[in-house]
């Protein structure tokens, strides 16, 4: 018999390499600039999925509010870009030139104080990580220190998503309201709307995603990673062994949120706007679905799942504009019924043993080193 743990880690590296090959070489060579930009957008959701593998797949913390952190990261980036796009020269037509257009529509006459630091790119980049991480810390500290977990935590995250959406929509003079922050143009004078810029941002996004995956792999393969699995499977035993379970859960939840936030910032850059429609309950659940389809125990699976679901969403909706939601629903039901552990589970549970058996029979595959 082969040893699943050793083998799985090897396979994971192979998977990483295949993903890198796919997103860095195959896709840029085979699809046009428009489709590549779409793939770039899907990859920003993959950041959230990677975070979910960490906190849901390995630690058992189901968060139905990851859109909050994706959105906060995205808003931090969008605020910087919006301020740059709202130079006095660009906004001459307004009653108060030099402030973002939506503030002018809402009769604000000066920039709100919390917008001011976002004039600086280093601060904005810092905030992209820090704001969501701090939000995640406050939320998780309050919950996990009181040993609130499981379904209750999932419900709280939903409530946070709803609260933040209402806040953003309600304070439209400060946040852009339901329209979001639109018409982002340049990054330090570099026009992010051109095809050339989109190519570069796509590759930046790919590199950051691969970086996050390696970071996640590093965490999971360390001693900490084993502890996380232990917390997922028997939280009380870990606590009785003397570990402070809450601290580990807080850490992994903040890490997952920070990774999601990087995705949000890349979204603002690549798509050119940010809106509250990413922050709410529905998009947050959708992000969990991406991860579930790919397989929540597998970093590779989560990324592939995100790409497949989003690609299906785009192509179904282009082909059947009035019926595509049924097709998506059908896909999810099929996945849950047929392979509850996602595509990655399908691969490790069904396909791999099959290859193994065929390999044994023909002797084509070298025998893995016996572990027993």
């Amino acid at each position, binding site marked *: 018999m082969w040893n699943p743990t050793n083998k799985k880690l090897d396979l994971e590296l192979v998977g990483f390499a295949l993903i890198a090959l796919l997103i860095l070489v195959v896709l840029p060579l085979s699809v046009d600039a428009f489709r590549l930009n779409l793939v770039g957008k899907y990859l920003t959701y993959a950041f959230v999925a990677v975070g979910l593998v960490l906190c849901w797949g390995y630690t058992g913390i189901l968060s139905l509010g990851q859109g909050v952190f994706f959105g906060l990261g995205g808003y931090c980036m969008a605020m910087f870009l919006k301020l740059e796009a709202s130079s006095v020269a660009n906004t001459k037509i307004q009653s108060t030139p030099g402030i973002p257009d939506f503030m002018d529509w809402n009769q604000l006459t000066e920039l709100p104080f919390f917008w001011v630091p976002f004039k600086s790119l280093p601060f904005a980049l810092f905030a992209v990580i820090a704001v969501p991480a701090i939000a995640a810390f406050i939320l998780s500290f309050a919950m996990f220190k009181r040993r609130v977990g499981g379904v209750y935590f999932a419900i709280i995250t939903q409530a946070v998503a709803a609260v933040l959406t209402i806040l953003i929509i309600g304070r439209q003079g400060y946040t852009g*309201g*339901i329209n979001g922050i639109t018409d982002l143009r340049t990054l330090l004078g570099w026009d992010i*709307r051109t095809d050339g810029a989109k190519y570069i941002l796509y590759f930046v996004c790919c590199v950051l995603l691969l970086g996050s995956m390696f970071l996640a792999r590093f965490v999971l393969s360390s001693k900490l990673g084993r502890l996380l699995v232990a917390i997922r499977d028997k939280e009380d035993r870990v606590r009785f062994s003397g570990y402070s379970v809450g601290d580990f859960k807080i850490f992994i939840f903040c890490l997952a949120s920070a990774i999601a936030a990087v995705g949000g910032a890349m979204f603002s850059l690549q798509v050119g706007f940010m809106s509250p429609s990413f922050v709410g309950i529905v998009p947050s659940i959708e992000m969990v679905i991406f991860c579930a389809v790919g397989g929540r125990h597998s970093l590779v699976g989560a990324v592939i799942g995100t790409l497949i679901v989003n690609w299906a969403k785009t192509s179904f909706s282009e082909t059947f504009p009035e019926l595509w939601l049924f097709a998506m629903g059908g896909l999810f039901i099929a996945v849950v019924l047929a392979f509850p552990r996602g595509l990655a589970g399908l691969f490790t549970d069904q396909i791999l043993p099959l290859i193994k058996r065929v390999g044994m029979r023909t002797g084509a595959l070298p025998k893995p080193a016996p572990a027993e």
Partner: protein
Amino acid sequence: MSFDQKRPTGPSLSRRQLLAGTAALSAAALVSPHALAQAFPTAKVNTTGLAVTDTEVTVGILHSVTGTMAISETGSVQAEKLAISQINEAGGVLGRKIKFIQEDGGSDWPTFAEKAKKLLVQDKCASVMGCWTSASRKAVLPVFEQYNGMLYYPTFYEGLEQSKNVIYTGQEATQQIIAGLDWVTKEKGAKTFYLLGSDYIWPRTSNKIARKHIENHLKTKVVGEEYFPLGHTQFNSVINKIKLTKPDVIYAIIVGGSNVAFYKQLKAAGIDLSQQTLLTISVTEDEIDGIGGENIAGAFACMKYFQSLKNPNNEKFVAAFHKMWGDKTVIGDVTQAAYLGPWLWKLTVEKAGSFDIDKIAAASPGVEFTGAPEGYVKIHENHHLWSKTRVGRARTDGQYDLIYETANLVEPDPFPKGYQ
């Protein structure tokens, strides 16, 4: 501020419109679509690589047909498809049949941006009819400007916007508001107003304009102004305040599903709309379908179009709409504005003698459409439409009776001085 409506309207005038174009165009128009297409070789009328062939031209339709906005936007899709099929029956545009590609915005603004880009970059659509909410328009606007597309946007909206790449076929805020307030002041002797709205940019901007007009021009008073989140259904507290302040006019800009709760609760609270004047700019025949005619009968709405308008254009339009989409469908203000989009585009292309976006943008000002169901419209230099403002009163059967219409077309003024 006014524009004389010179001629009676009639369907034959669209042909006259055509004849008023270039000499080559008028000569060819008398022959056949095929000859017309030959008179305008594709290489000449399409120098920027749009999806135009010798026999066909592709346009996009971009609305939500799924999600919360689908109920509102479906009428627009139907109207646009009707206009396209009528144009094709009449020979197409420069002898080319219109083919449309429909995309679903899914009531989600980023999806609108993605699909708009697809329609422009991949499908090379010669124009796009689409969007409904301001949020979706704001999301696609940078896309249309960057890739130089042409959007025909049908909804009445808050103004404060003007783009080379958009033709606004609905009213901007001043067109919908000022004439209505003048009318209610004159006819009903209104002195006090209570302003209500859903909490987003259109109702807020509209109420801002209304307040300035009420206070600075009519010299009357606003006694209350309140906003509610989209989807809000508890209006009892504001209804109590209305009962206490007893305004002469309730001015309501509540949108979507909230309307159902608002008008039912108003009725339940004993506010009788045959006694209490209520003026809305957000309830069309489509919304009444959901509210129920008996709950809103007696309310006044300020629009530019009602299904019940009596003119030959509208009677033909309503008949054709019912033939294509069933007798039960109702036609609201925005649906009519959406119907104008393909026609205005066709007339503009034929005036410009080209499908090129830059030429269409330049040729748009001054384009007249005499076959419009609302009567007669003309595109202003600012890419909005000159159109009349009308006040209607809701009946129990869900239709409006026309009470008042401005004598002249009202000039669109998206950046109104003194109202900002």
